[in-house]
């Protein structure tokens, strides 16, 4: 019912706004596609993958690391958050569900669907005993959730308080959310670009923003970040870091997806004028890219760098402490596949990225140009193991280390 209202709103907004109505009817993802190109987003898989088809055996890791299937049968699993009692919550996009995954004493897991029918409930954040779900233009708070997994009470509606742009405001582009809890107790999220690339209101779109948990006091943390679907605060410096998805249809190798370090609130990272540190061929508008904050690292062209976390556990070797694990969901806007892996951005003492390490590979089959799964998020568990969500196969992998 709410979806229907939302859609009616979308239609009204689209019909009412003359500027919007004049936009070409081409789907957002295809705007700018060169004639003759057949590149298009890969189809999602929204049905259960039998456990024997979950490609855990294909995963490749550095020496000493092992991968196992933590949970499976969770179609579309994406962003993860952990409750105080150890429940792993997973958001989704098209299938509209939020999952709760709890561990049985024998090490197996039990998965419940705690919410469904939502518009792309991708952003999850846990504050105390409350789970916040950020869907498209909708924010819901599930209080005391872990005590009520079998009988989930109606959530507290915070949609109006947050006042996030609607899917129509976004023109259907980049309207889904990532959410993180800051060390200051605020909820950090993205407001993605309302197109692939265009002139836009730079106080409304391509932002990192934060709110009080009740939705008040919206603050722009960074401008000119095209679409971040992954962010985390450095455990020592408390600085905000974010991954970013670069624009499409500007070639196989430009721009790169990027990692961003936000040192001052509200600083400008340059989109749409500049991407991955250099001028956009169409939308530069005469701006000098050196006037903007430079990316902290280039993460590869079209790799879809999404969920990121600093490694704060003790299970992994010391060299990984406070380094950034990044899930790269994998490319569609490129003739040869890139990404489909987890990388580590290694930082020096000043917080400069010194190198990118390919950490979890094996899901991209270069010879046959196929992929086996699409990693979307990473999560450091309290025992120091690392969870990786695989959206395409509806599985969560767990990575451990033994000396």
């Amino acid at each position: 019912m709410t979806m229907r209202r939302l859609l009616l709103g979308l239609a009204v907004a689209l019909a009412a706004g003359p500027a919007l109505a004049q936009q070409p009817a081409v789907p957002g993802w295809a705007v700018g596609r060169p004639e003759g190109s057949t590149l298009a987003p890969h189809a999602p898989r929204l049905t259960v993958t039998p456990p024997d088809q979950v490609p855990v055996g294909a995963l490749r890791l550095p020496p000493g690391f092992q991968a196992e299937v933590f949970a499976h049968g969770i179609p579309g699993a994406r962003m993860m958050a952990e409750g105080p009692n150890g429940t792993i919550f997973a958001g989704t996009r098209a299938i509209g569900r939020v999952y709760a995954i709890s561990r049985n004493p024998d090490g197996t897991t039990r998965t419940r669907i705690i919410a469904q029918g939502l518009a792309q409930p991708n952003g999850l954040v846990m504050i105390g005993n409350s789970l916040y779900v950020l869907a498209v233009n909708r924010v819901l708070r599930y209080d005391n959730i872990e005590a009520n997994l079998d009988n989930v009470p109606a959530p507290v509606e915070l949609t109006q308080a947050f006042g996030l742009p609607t899917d129509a405001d976004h023109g259907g582009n980049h309207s889904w959310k990532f959410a993180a809890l800051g060390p200051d107790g605020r909820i950090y999220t993205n407001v993605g670009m309302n197109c692939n690339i265009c002139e836009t209101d730079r106080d409304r779109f391509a932002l990192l923003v934060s709110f009080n948990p009740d939705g008040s006091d919206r603050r722009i943390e960074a401008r000119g970040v095209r679409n971040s679907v992954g962010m985390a605060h450095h455990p020592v410096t408390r600085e905000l870091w974010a991954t970013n998805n670069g624009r499409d249809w500007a070639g196989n190798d430009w721009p790169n997806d990027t990692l961003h370090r936000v040192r001052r609130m509200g600083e400008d990272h340059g989109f749409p004028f500049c991407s991955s540190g250099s001028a956009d061929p169409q939308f530069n508008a005469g701006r000098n890219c050196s006037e903007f904050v430079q990316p902290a690292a280039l993460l590869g062209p079209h790799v879809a760098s999404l969920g990121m976390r600093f490694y704060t556990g003790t299970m992994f070797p010391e060299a990984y402490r406070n380094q950034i694990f990044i899930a790269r969901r994998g490319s569609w806007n490129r003739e040869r596949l890139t990404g489909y892996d987890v990388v580590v951005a290694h930082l020096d003492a000043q917080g400069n990225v010194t190198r990118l390490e390919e950490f979890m590979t094996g899901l991209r089959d270069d010879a046959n140009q196929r992929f086996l799964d699409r990693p979307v998020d990473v999560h450091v568990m309290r025992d120091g193991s690392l969870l990786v969500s695989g959206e395409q196969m509806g599985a969560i992998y767990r990575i451990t280390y033994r000396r």
Partner: protein
Amino acid sequence: MRPGHLLAAAVLAAALPHTAPAQDAARGAGLAADRCSACHGADGRSQIPDIPSLAGQQAGFITLQMILIREGIRHVPAMAAVAQGMPDRDIEDLAAYFASLPPAPPEDRRPRDAALASAGEALIGPRLCGVCHLPSLTGRDQIPRIVAQHEDYLARAMTEYRDGRRVGADAQMNGAMVGLSDADIAALAHYLAHRD
């Protein structure tokens, strides 16, 4: 075709998950006889103007739509009870079955109106239908085949997308329908229904 196009086409065809799910079309046939054929026709060819034929439809599209209906994201009152609680395996098997059937135009197709069809055809290019549905308009994966379908159904689907009463996995079709008049939609539906 330039080599680049061939490469891109090869990439599109190949870049699918390695482990294809093992759908069982034969099992799907049994399920369809019980649950689908009364409305969608014994051979996936609907005899009811407002209900789509499913013969030859893309398996990915049928699967996606069934899940959107089951999950309460797409609202189709007549389908709600059928979809409620349907296991993924049943959905995949049904989709494999319908995809395996040869597509055919509706038997009760009304006579082709040349003026109406050409008005519809004139909208296909500007509306960029072929970007997603492919130039043949026979679809791919989760994007449906839209040719030789029931005209009434096509018109209703497009109207629902335009008016925000239907949604797919995203809002792309809603955007694609913006600004079309009822007459435009009628012309498109007529053209598509008559294209084989």
